[in-house]
């Protein structure tokens, strides 16, 4: 039984890590064909990636869209969660349902709906439009995480602050938000992850300035080249470093 467990674990990790391993190995392939045999190592694809203006611009765009849209989603989600958790409002079940609803809808549908709506309004596709879409997909996530995290002891702390004469704004910023720092950080980073890697909304709602997944897609569509592998490996390296850094420095003390 025990041996079986370890065997299963090994096979599962092999399956999970296989494509990443292959990706990284062939990013060093000296030649354009990303299949065996391995023809020797080169760094030239990485050089090309780093010299590619469009890719670096897309990387910055992605980072910007991810951070801004996640911040908006977080703030909106926090306020809504606070409002619904603290005040008894008529129709609150319905409102919670509406706020969660986008989570149950395919991104393609959200993208198509927004594309159509922006067209009708005469708005051009842009990073802004993409950001709006990303707030739509991340708002339910932020809301759900924060709503679940609002406990009773927090309510009493808020009441105490209010009784001591704190304004509602000060209660929100000085009591509620700090008490929820951990789930807020979790919600924010989760949102950033989703926005960072989201393709279809960004694909349909951008024009010239595009996000990284869209740029990678056009790289993939515009010629066979191990550059794709190199970008993928670089993105992987950067993300994993970020995750490890967060794990070590931010979330470590929490447990």
């Amino acid at each position, binding site marked *: 039984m025990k041996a079986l467990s370890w065997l299963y674990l090994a096979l599962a990790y092999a399956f999970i890590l296989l494509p990443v391993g292959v990706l990284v190995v062939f990013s060093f392939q000296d030649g354009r064909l990303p299949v065996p045999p391995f023809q020797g190592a080169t760094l030239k694809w990485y050089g090309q990636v780093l010299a590619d203006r469009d890719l670096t611009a897309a990387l910055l765009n992605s980072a910007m869209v991810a951070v801004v849209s996640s911040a908006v989603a977080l703030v909106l989600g926090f306020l809504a969660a606070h409002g619904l958790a603290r005040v008894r409002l008529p129709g609150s079940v319905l409102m919670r349902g509406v706020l969660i609803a986008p989570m149950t809808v395919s991104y393609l549908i959200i993208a198509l709906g927004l594309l159509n709506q922006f067209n009708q309004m005469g708005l051009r596709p842009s990073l802004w439009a993409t950001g709006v879409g990303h707030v739509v997909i991340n708002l339910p996530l932020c809301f759900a995480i924060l709503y679940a995290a609002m406990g009773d002891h927090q309510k009493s702390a808020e009441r105490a602050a209010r009784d001591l004469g704190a304004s509602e704004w000060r209660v929100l910023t000085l009591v509620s938000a700090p008490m929820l720092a951990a789930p807020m950080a979790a919600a924010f980073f989760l949102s950033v992850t989703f926005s960072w890697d989201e393709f279809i909304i960004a694909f349909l709602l951008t*024009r010239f300035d595009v996000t990284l997944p869209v740029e990678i897609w056009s790289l993939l569509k515009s010629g066979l080249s191990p550059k794709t592998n190199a970008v993928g490996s670089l993105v992987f390296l950067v993300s994993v470093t970020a995750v490890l850094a967060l794990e070590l420095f931010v979330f470590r003390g929490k447990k």
Partner: protein
Amino acid sequence: MARFASVSVLALLTASPALSQELNALVWCDHTDPALVQPFEEKHGIKVNLKEYEGTAAGLAILEQSQPGDWDVLVIDAVDVGRAVEGGHLAEIAPDQLATADFFPELVMAENNMVGGKTYAVTEKFGYNTIAYDKTKVDPADMADMATLTSGKYDGRIAIYDYYLPVLGLVALGQGVATKDITADTLATLKDPLFKLKAASKQVSDVVSAQTALATGEVDIMIGGGEWVTAVLAADNPNLDWTIPKQGGLRWAQSIGVVAGSTQPDMALEFVKYITSPEGQARLATSSCYWGMPANAKAGDVLTPEQKAILRWDEQAEFLKRAQLYPIPDAALDTAMQDMWTEMLQQ
């Protein structure tokens, strides 16, 4: 917080249209090669924004949804220039601005680039949709006859290029129907041979996955392929070759023009002139997405002998004679062709 939202919305609303020092071009993927656009950008101190599309309908849909001034340059299938003009998307170009005198005569394509005696676009690149293959894996003699493809000999080793116009055109040629004679009636007779081809094939793929499949030995034959598949991979897999079978092949051609309503028609025309100049033509011919023959014969002075050999520069006269243009369907036939294609994908 409502203010936050309204600020974003406001920013969206007022987001500036293209800055004056930018040129917006709606193009095929071969134009996105930085090596092609950079010389022009540096010379004029302008940024060229490129958006690629696939399929004329999609390109025209993008233009429909845009506002006047959004676009400056359009690259489109030469046979579809008329459609774009009909939709009011292309501006007239003074013919004396264009170097068509230097072109291969077959590529001036006045009947396609001109509507009602006025010039709206100019041919920039051409090539063939025929049969590409790995000459070490198949018998090259077999490739001279389309019928061998569905004979069973190459089952599961064929990829079909995922674009309905050229492949349906090829299937038509295989049935002895000229591309210009494809009608709703003749189309119906193409269904069977098309589906047979699908049954014999392993995959239906876009430009790059088809290149990948052929170069890595995933498949050995590509229907609808040509120099645009093999040339770019010549260095990595020299065994790739292509031919025009005895039933004939298709000739593809792209045209470029200035979009009607462009706020900077002069700069747009300048770009068109650059692309059709010998230097621009040589870069376009060998751009990273796919290679193809330049329409301007003077590009031959700029291309290296190796590049010309890969493009098969010296054999063009023979090829041009044996290739037909894409079919030019009206709206109803176009829809019927696409529907048949979708059904084929689903087989």
